[in-house]
């Protein structure tokens, strides 16, 4: 028992980061699952992170209020982004979202009152593992409910074939707008979670590095199911830590190689509902053939 507790203590910060990354990945998954490739999770996280940090530091708010407000902030930012970007064609939108990430850093660097400018903000409080777990479970529950609802079905249709979906009465614009709102709310939470786990944030925190790794987590874990985002984030966070014990110099390289291997051999990621369906069909075919033989 003691060894388990020791193990837990040694790795609790890794678990915390894995959960934060899972929230980031889920925020990206929210829009990716409707066919939108967007890096804007980072922007929503920045809004949520700086907002919550200031609310706690300047107004002494408890985390239980600061976090939901961070989510609201993220959601509002998402509404604005969706309004501006959803008219763009897929590829241009992806690039525009990247440009927005770049601009966000510039804005953050030049608003020291809000963000501490170049020096960033030190955050004296830390969100506990238990609190993070609650947040992640709630968010996971939301995604579970979404996947079993009419929204989930509509989202899958829009992702696979928006033109066909529209002739069935499903509005791709409406579905993707809702997706952006979800992405914003979850992203805001993720940003707050990151701020209160790292205990230091600066404009560099919410930048391209995170943007790329969070989308990589989503795809590696499986971009066709929400649980994949959690798995992908866990792997992406745990892998460097595991490598540290084996070959310290290559922790980051290991992430890149893992991602590369998955993209080449399992491009739909680790968790893929369709693969299960294909296997079942293949088994049925083999059974039918052996019956006929």
């Amino acid at each position, binding site marked *: 028992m003691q060894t388990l507790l020791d193990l837990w203590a040694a790795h609790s910060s890794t678990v915390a980061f894995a959960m934060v990354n899972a929230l980031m990945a889920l925020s990206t998954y929210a829009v990716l699952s409707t066919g939108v490739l967007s890096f804007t999770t980072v922007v929503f996280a920045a809004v949520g992170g700086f907002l919550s940090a200031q609310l706690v530091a300047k107004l002494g708010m408890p985390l239980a209020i600061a976090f939901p407000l961070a989510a609201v902030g993220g959601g509002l930012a998402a509404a604005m982004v969706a309004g501006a970007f959803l008219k763009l064609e897929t*590829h241009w939108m992806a*690039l525009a979202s990247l*440009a927005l990430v770049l601009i966000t850093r510039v*804005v953050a660097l*030049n608003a020291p009152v809000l963000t501490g400018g170049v020096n960033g903000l030190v955050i004296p409080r830390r969100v506990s593992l238990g609190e993070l777990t609650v947040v992640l479970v709630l968010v996971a529950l939301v995604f579970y409910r979404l996947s079993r609802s009419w929204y989930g079905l509509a989202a899958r249709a829009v992702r696979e074939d928006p033109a066909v979906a529209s002739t069935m009465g499903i509005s791709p614009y409406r579905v993707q707008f809702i997706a952006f709102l979800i992405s914003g709310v979850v992203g805001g939470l993720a940003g707050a979670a990151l701020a209160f786990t790292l205990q230091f944030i600066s404009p560099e925190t919410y930048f391209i590095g995170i943007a790329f790794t969070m*989308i*990589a987590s989503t795809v590696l874990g499986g971009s066709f199911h929400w649980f994949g985002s959690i798995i992908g984030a866990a792997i992406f966070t745990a892998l460097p830590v595991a490598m540290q014990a084996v070959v310290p110099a290559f922790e980051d390289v290991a992430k*890149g190689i893992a991602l590369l291997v998955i*993209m080449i051999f399992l491009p739909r990621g680790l968790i893929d509902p369709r693969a299960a369906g294909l296997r079942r069909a293949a088994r049925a075919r083999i059974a039918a053939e052996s019956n006929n033989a």
Partner: protein
Amino acid sequence: MQLFLEQTINGVALGSLYALFGIGFGLVFATLGILNAAHGTYASWAAIVAYYALDWYGAPFPVAAAAGVIAGGTIAVVVDQIAFQPLRNRGTGLLGALITSIAFWIILDSLAGQATEHQALAFPATSYPTRMLELGAMRVPIMQVIVITSLVVCATGIYLLIQKTLVGAAMRAVGWNSVAAALGGVNSRIVILLTAFLAGATSGLAGVLAGVTTSNVSFTLGEGLMLKGFAAVVVGGFEDVRGTAVAGIMLGVIEVSAAQYLSTSFRDGITYTLLLLFLMLRPRGLFGSTNFLRA
């Protein structure tokens, strides 16, 4: 007046770096249809190879630079074949290629950090030309002249290659529809390899020159170039090398002029805002054509 002219030349030189990188990046996007997140690392690595060629072997500057350029091209080919070729065979789209390029960005960036031991290395002052050219009343560092000349030569050369030669026609054909191109007798494989090498070499050249002129050979070199080069490609127009060149110079001049009045990050903000505005309002850029269709 003299100061103004010298500042303008500074801007043009800086912009030439952006343009040079952008040409390489744009080649991959326009002809191969790939948004390559790893492209910046080619520039970083080219600078690193050039640095070590100088440091370990005492190679003269042109040789070291050439080594860097070749390294950039080679890495680009390797990445293309390992990361993108399997995807091509499968017909995967933009997202797949992007994620795979992110994988390589992680790998190459991390390795670059180790190669430089996470420091910013500087080319020793004796290793590259440092004379000042006297042009009328102005004094211009000869490196700036080299940078600007490189851009002009490369931009012209690549433009002529793409527009006026059979190889260039093959590149455009493959970029548009590689199956049709193959049916027409184009060896897609070779064309792709050639395009990748050229793109990597051009951006590698930008990396080497940037490393010299900014005294900063590190794994962050590529990222800076990439963002500005990417902006140059979008603002100038994806298809046309000349557009990238003009836009890159324009961005460099704007940046240097703005430096008088604004902080560094604000200057960057201007570039990124222009980038965003063009993406939203005029994706084809200043010089691109309206039938630009990347599936």
